[in-house]
């Protein structure tokens, strides 16, 4: 028993250490979780599972409580939108009654039922299995069986993303109006607060990477991406809001990276493609090695953008949750120890929050800067 707790403690330590090195943290926490599963008792706190559950996307915004532990759960339901064999179906996620084990079936009409299995919406089996679950999965290997509905739900990340976009439109529209209404005058209020950031992106990111002439063409995209990522990162740091992890959701960062890839590819000039298709200044055999590398490179660049952002933001959340887990793990041994560790953990969490505030800005800046550099690369004129 005690041994297991110590092992859990080490899992969390590994998690923290891994999260410090950002990108590998996701993998480390996963392997730790699998290891703990075999030995730990059912009721025991599973740090890995807990953390992954909190940073993964979800069909509701979980505020507090835990349905599985029998603690009344309070969460904001979100619309579940499914493209099924029988067309578009929509219902609120509250219909699952906080269940994510495939036990609660939801009737979507036409004799079809769906279940929520680990935040995947799947067609329900006709019969429940030994655990009372209707989820169409193979319990030994966990793969999903058969065709599944296309999930177009407004998930937590989508909801957060839409919220941020709405805020962006409201904020920047009013700032934009201020520039037309008070043209040539000193900025005030919101305009004054955001102008340094806009100027920072223009003068420190866009113009050095693209040159003053071409910067104008790409600035709307760069500014939108920067403020979107930054504000999403900040939303993820607001406590008691369900722990949004928008920029730690691969679906979102993949789209952002895809936009960078598309814009780079569309704007690539003769010089850019020339370097990829027929690298100049190298012997012929080298060319045949370089061409595939260059092709991998054009896909690798946006992929790296995506992974860096996702991993960094997820890692920050993992760090903070790991400290929370520490308190719980020690609290299970003895309440006094839990409180004792809690003091240290809270101090570290405060430190992490400040660090994450910096990372929130830094990652938005890095993404924007690299996107600008790729655009600059693609539109660079031959000069040698």
């Amino acid at each position, binding site marked *: 028993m005690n041994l297991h707790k110590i092992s859990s403690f080490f899992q969390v330590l590994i998690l923290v250490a891994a999260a410090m090195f950002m990108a590998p943290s*996701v993998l480390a926490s*996963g392997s730790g*979780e699998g290891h703990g599963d075999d030995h730990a008792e059912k009721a025991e706190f599973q740090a890995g599972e807990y953390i*992954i559950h909190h*940073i*993964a*996307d979800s069909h509701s915004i979980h505020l507090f409580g835990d349905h599985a532990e029998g603690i009344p759960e309070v969460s904001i339901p979100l619309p579940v*939108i499914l493209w099924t064999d029988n067309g578009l179906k929509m219902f609120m996620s509250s219909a699952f009654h906080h269940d994510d084990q495939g036990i609660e079936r939801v009737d979507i009409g036409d004799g079809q039922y769906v279940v929520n299995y*680990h*935040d*995947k919406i799947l067609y329900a089996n006709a019969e429940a299995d030994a655990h009372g679950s209707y989820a169409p999965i193979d319990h030994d290997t966990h793969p999903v069986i058969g065709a599944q509905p*296309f*999930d*177009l*739900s*407004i*998930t937590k*990340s*989508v909801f957060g*993303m*839409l919220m941020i*976009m709405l805020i*962006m*439109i409201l904020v*920047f*529209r009013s*700032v*934009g*109006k201020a*520039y*037309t209404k008070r*043209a*040539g005058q000193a900025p005030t209020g919101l305009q004054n607060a955001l*102008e340094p950031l*806009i*100027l920072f992106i*223009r003068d420190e990111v866009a113009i050095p990477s693209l040159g003053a002439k071409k910067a*104008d063409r790409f*600035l*709307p*995209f760069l*500014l*939108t991406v920067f403020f*979107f990522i930054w504000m999403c990162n900040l939303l993820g740091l607001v406590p008691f809001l369900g722990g949004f992890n928008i920029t730690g*959701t*691969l*679906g*979102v960062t*993949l*789209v*952002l990276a*895809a*936009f960078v890839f598309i814009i780079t590819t569309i704007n690539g000039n003769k010089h850019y493609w020339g370097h990829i298709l027929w690298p100049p200044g190298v012997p012929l055999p080298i060319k045949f090695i370089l061409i595939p590398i260059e092709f991998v490179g054009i896909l690798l660049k946006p992929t790296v953008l995506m992974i860096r952002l996702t991993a960094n933001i*997820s890692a920050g959340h993992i760090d903070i949750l790991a400290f929370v887990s520490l308190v719980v793990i020690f609290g299970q041994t003895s309440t006094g120890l839990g409180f004792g560790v809690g003091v240290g953990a809270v101090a570290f969490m405060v430190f992490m929050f400040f660090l994450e505030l910096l990372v929130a800005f830094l990652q938005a800046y890095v993404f924007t800067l690299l996107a600008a550099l790729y655009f600059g690369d693609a539109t660079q004129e031959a000069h040698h």
Partner: protein
Amino acid sequence: MDALLSPSLGTMVWASIAFIIVLIILRRAAWGPILKGLKEREESIAESLNEAEKARQDIADLKSDNEKLLQEARVERDNILKEARELKDSMIADAKNQAKEEAEKMVNSAREAIETEKAAALADLKEHVAMLSLEIAEKVVRQSLSSDDSQKALVDKLLQETDLN
């Protein structure tokens, strides 16, 4: 784990649509006016600075112009004063010369007048001498009648009395 590492297609669909819409709206309603406003403001500030620099240059030019003008005026004044002084000197010299000439002229005419008066006086004197001689001769003639010696004495006496000058 799975939920973390596999991107959800639904999320991607929403993200793409929402991002494109936001990009279009912000481009029109926000970034356009903001970037334009910033550029215009920067240009107007740069222009104002240039104008201020130009105005400063103008003032500096004006100042140096004034300085030059002042310098010229000073030189002019000095010239005028010098000319005036020269004029004064020459006028005084002229006046002196004139006065000298006038004085010489007056002295000359006075001398001429004196010469004339002298000649006239001499002529008068000659006439007087002649008259006196005649009178003496008359008196001598009258005394000769008494004695020779007395006659002679008389002539001497008369001659002595008569001062020829």
